[in-house]
């Protein structure tokens, strides 16, 4: 399909006036979510997530590095994202765009603030720590990269195994220990179309939105938030969305946990 896969924003707004969305979706309903883990054999952890037709792939590489001078006894956690040109006619070849950078940093913040990884446990010795590099590849864009991305990164981390570091070399063995995950963070992204707010916008809905709010929680606390685009939210709207976000936590966490039982 080409860049002309337009759905007139007017129509989306019209539908929402009567509380409806395309494909009879509820305004607080997620599209079908599919998570597949350990799909990449050369990565220490990986997960592919489909939210409707949005398809993303997260890969984790464990690297031994010197610790940062301001956190000498802690490992590192770095999230990067790429909006691959294969994902949409709108994505260009080149260095990460502001949207790609925002995507990576927002996902990073939620997981870091949630203390999902015990960074102190990644310390090897005075000169070496493990750095957890997570790269998020967007393979097909159809809206809501934030929630798909957070699910993919969180799932990939949950399946990550730490190689052994022996004689200055990284060695992969069959009994590598899993990365210790202390907390699970998920996110819910809402967008405003006209004066209606909907959860998990697809690509067509995103092209009609005036503003967007992503809320990352761990069930008890709000861990990160990011408002995007130039529209505005009222305090009441935000409080409602926070409630809604918490109410979605269990269902999303269950999806991640289901992959661990396999």
């Amino acid at each position, binding site marked *: *399909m*080409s*860049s002309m*896969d337009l759905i007139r924003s007017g129509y989306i707004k019209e539908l929402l006036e009567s509380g409806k969305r395309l494909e009879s979706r509820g305004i607080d309903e997620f599209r079908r979510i599919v998570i597949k883990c350990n*799909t*990449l*054999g*050369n*990565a220490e952890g*990986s997960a592919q997530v489909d939210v409707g*037709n949005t*398809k993303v*792939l997260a*890969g*984790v*590489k464990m*690297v031994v590095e010197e610790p940062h001078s301001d956190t000498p006894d802690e490992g590192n956690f770095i999230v*990067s994202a*790429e909006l*691959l*040109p*294969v*994902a*949409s*006619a709108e994505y260009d*070849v080149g*260095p*990460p765009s502001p949207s790609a950078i925002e995507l990576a940093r927002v996902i990073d913040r939620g997981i870091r603030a949630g203390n999902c990884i015990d960074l102190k446990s990644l310390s090897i010795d005075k000169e070496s720590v493990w750095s957890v*590099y997570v*790269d998020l*590849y967007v*393979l*097909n*864009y*159809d809206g809501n990269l934030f929630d798909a991305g957070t699910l993919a990164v969180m799932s990939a981390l949950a399946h990550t195994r730490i190689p052994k570091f022996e004689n200055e070399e*990284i060695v*992969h063995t069959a009994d590598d220990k899993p990365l210790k995950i202390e907390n699970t963070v998920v996110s819910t992204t809402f967008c405003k179309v006209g004066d209606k707010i909907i959860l998990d916008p697809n690509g067509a809905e995103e092209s009609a939105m005036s503003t967007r709010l992503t809320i990352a929680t761990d069930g008890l606390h709000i861990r990160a938030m990011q408002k995007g685009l130039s529209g505005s939210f009222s305090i009441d709207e935000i409080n409602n969305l926070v409630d809604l976000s918490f109410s979605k936590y269990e269902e999303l966490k269950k999806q991640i946990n289901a992959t661990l039982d396999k």
Partner: protein
Amino acid sequence: MSHANKPELIINGKRTDGRDFEELRPLKVEAGILKNAAGSAYLEWGNNKVLAAVYGPREVVPKHLTDSSKAIVKCRYSMAPFSSLSEHGRSGPNRRAMEISKVTKEVFENVIMLNEYPGSEIDIFVEILQGDGGTRSAGITAAAVALAIAGIAIRDLVYAVSAAKIGENMIIDPNMIEDNYSDADMPVAVSPKNNEILLLQMDGGYTKEELKRSFEMVFKAGKTITEIQKESIRKLYEGVSK
């Protein structure tokens, strides 16, 4: 590659992964896996995992590159940061990737009927999600399927595979270890209709006879590869009316 720590690559007439010299790694192709791209294909070849996608024909960017008599072809071969076992790749194209992008583009400039789409641009993207030797061949093999699915007029469904030499032994489709320690390594892309060679690179040492033998092995392997590519496309049209 230094041969100081060269592992035993051939043991009792078999290769390290148990293959015969002329045996291909398992190859699976899934066509049309991405919704937005005009054409796409996902390929698993041994431990290689490759995604190819095509966009176009579409407007040329930047405009001054437009050729009013034919389409221009752009190609980007890229390895994901998590594609290698031994390291975390940094972002951005390196010289190796740029060279592969160029020779891949040249394969498709040959088979795409460029005159059908004057003033346009056809973009081919190859993303290596997991690499284990022979990724450029895997990329070309996948991109050929993606182009066919995109409905872009092409003269033939091309494939690519590498031939290599270990000691006296000629082998086909080396994995990464074999690739690193081989005595010659030769990726080849072929238009099977007339066995025309569209990509040829080589380094190492071959006698004339060894070269001939390598091409024979490539064409033989090509029959298997082509059939797998074709099956992946035919599969999309199951339930065809008679």
